[in-house]
């Protein structure tokens, strides 16, 4: 696989991993570029990469965490709004919605919740892959995802 196909295939997910760690669009764009440069650089060398996917996720996650750490002061990361349990049966909610409304609702969500949903459902990452990219345990990754899904469902019960 050459560098170009790696970048066009994994660009979106690199960005999502980075943004879900940094929670800032502009910064995430820059740091994603940085991660992609590193990937390109490594591909240019003698690097043997046998599992591109986890390798790329690792670089993306590490680059983002580096960026976070290099900030001299800690940034307050906004906590997503508290989630009220959806009162409607779960599956009926997602099933019955038009894709268009689901998309709009997703787009309007706070970034941390939205990005973990996108990593799962848009990029199709497995649980362990998400945990690995975000540098957290599988159960912590599940907490994040399940909270995001609850938030999404509670937003869907609001009037459109």
């Amino acid at each position: 696989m050459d560098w170009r196909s790696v970048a066009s295939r994994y660009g979106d997910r690199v960005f999502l991993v980075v943004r879900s760690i940094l929670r800032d669009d502009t910064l995430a764009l820059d740091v994603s570029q940085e991660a992609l440069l590193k990937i390109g650089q490594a591909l240019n060398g003698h690097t043997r990469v046998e599992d591109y996917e986890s390798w790329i996720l690792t670089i993306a996650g590490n680059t983002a965490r580096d960026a976070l750490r290099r900030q001299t002061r800690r940034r307050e990361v906004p906590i997503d709004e508290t989630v009220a349990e959806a009162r409607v049966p779960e599956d009926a909610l997602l099933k019955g919605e038009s894709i268009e409304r689901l998309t709009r609702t997703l787009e309007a969500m706070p970034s941390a919740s939205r990005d973990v949903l996108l990593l799962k459902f848009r990029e199709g990452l497995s649980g362990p892959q998400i945990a690995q990219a975000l540098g957290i345990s599988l159960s912590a990754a599940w907490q994040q995802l399940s909270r995001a899904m609850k938030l999404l469902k509670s937003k869907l019960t609001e009037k459109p």
Partner: protein
Amino acid sequence: MSCPTNETLERLALGFLDDERDVRKHTDACAECAKTLSHMRTGHEALTAAAKRVKLPSLAPRRPLSRPHVWAIAAGLLVVVGLVFVTPHHSPEPPAPPGIAPGTVAAVEKDGLAAAKGELRGPAREVNLLNSVDGDPVGATLPATGLASRNRGLYDSTGVTLGGKRPMPEPKPAPPDKPFTGLPGDMTFKNPGVNPTTDTAKEATSTFALDVDTASYTLARKYLREGNVPPADAIRVEEFVNYFRYHDEAPPVGTFAIRLEAAPSPYDESMHLLRVGIRAKDLKAKERKDVVLTLLIDVSGSMASGGRLELVKKSVRFLLEKLRPTDKIAVCTFTTYARKLLDATPVSEKEKILAAVDPLTPQNSTNVKEGLEVAYKAASDAFDAKLTNRVMLFSDGVANTGDTVPESMLDAISRDAARGIFLTVMGVGMGNFNDKILETLANKGNGNYAYIDTFDEAKKAFGERLLGTLDIVAIDAKLQAEFDPATVATFRLVGYENRHVANQDFRNDKVDAGEVGPGHQVTALYEIRLKPDTKGRLVTVRIRFKEPGTNEMIEDQQSISAAQVLPKLKDASPSFRLASAVMQFAEVLRGSPRAKEVSLERVADEAKFAAREMDRQADADEFLELVKIARDLKLGRRD
């Protein structure tokens, strides 16, 4: 074991359980839980479709920067951002990444990723860690069960070397002596998009691989019938246009007939549409060689939803009715692991084949890689150079793992294709996240790709289209249109975005292209702008392919001149007008900038008249039904 909680079931469905064996054992046996899971999956599929439509900012290509500049800019930016986010409640220490202490090696999720992907097994793996930009070691959280070793060098340490019981062949990164030049200037992080309009003064030739697939249309139909707008990424215009049959006659001699027709463009009357109609020769049923067919059936958990596996079984039963007693069938299945259930067995022993297929039940996760390995091994064992050899994959794609068939696997498939083992991919079930990989597989495997959403569609594939599905009359078929810059100012190929072949490779016979079966029709549409008061030849269309059996390369060509251009769209043949209508519909669905002004009402009218003249009432009815749904979903220009 009593039924697990809904949360546990959802963790199972989304791949977040540490150990899913016990829960899986329960849900495999419990109808109630299976039902809940299937409900959840439907919700997840909707969420997937929606997530695919969320717009992400495009990572605009940046000029190549020398290394110190990159870090200077990155560091500068971070300082700025850091200042912006200063708050009175900061903690004095920069946060360590959760779960990893700096300078330590984290071995997390024992075999987690590997198990999820089902790709890499084996106990010991070495992991070289990535160093941070400023030289600080950063723990990489790779799934490693063995010891990890650290490398402190800058840049040479981004590599991950995974050794195990089954090492995969090494991929080929760019040659080491070539300087890295940053992001390529034309790179975007989106799908192939829409072909641009090309000025013939700069480039007068267009080349692409023929494509007889139709899956994109069938998949979009399923979306529309369920009341959803199909994702734009899933729309391939050529597969829409090629789904319909046109009045192109079979060649009196040779393999292909090429028919060219040009009339004013439906988008813009000052432009023209050129229709290239390719029709492959027919083969009589009795002329077909016997086939050795290796069925590879996905029996992963997701195949339970919507009765996908049952549809596959019913389709296989129908296929057996249509095959000859002397054809042979082998059966393989895959979930987390793959198995060969039946060696190549003549269809005359149908009971044996059905006994292998009928009891299949969906379970566990999807390991398409191992499935393909086992199936190609079975096909190799049963290989007979005198017959047609083909693997037929039935799958809803690759659950949870995105586009993760490794390059090494695709290479192996290409090699087997070159030996004469072809691939048919039968997509079942919903969700275009699987569409891309299934299409790639079919392309690499010199194969065809169809999507069956109903038993009727299966009957078409194995009934009237069986010969086209099983046999092949042209290998690596490419088409090249050479426009005359004196008469044609610009051209745009509508569709075939991911079938592009470099112009200079038209006569490079090593380049993989498209396979065409008997009776297949392929239509290509070009939107062209003619120069004023033009006379003479507009374009020469060439087709080049390898003839199966003789392996001889054959080239054919056809031209059209300005005098043959029709003055009005309504003068065009019904085939032309139907293709034009289908093209517009697909372009509306994929949000092509050219189709902004398209009124679906007019498209429906055009299609109605054309299909009636062609005596294809059933096609017309279906097409009109879909156009109506699309209008109800507020697509196209409102009149």
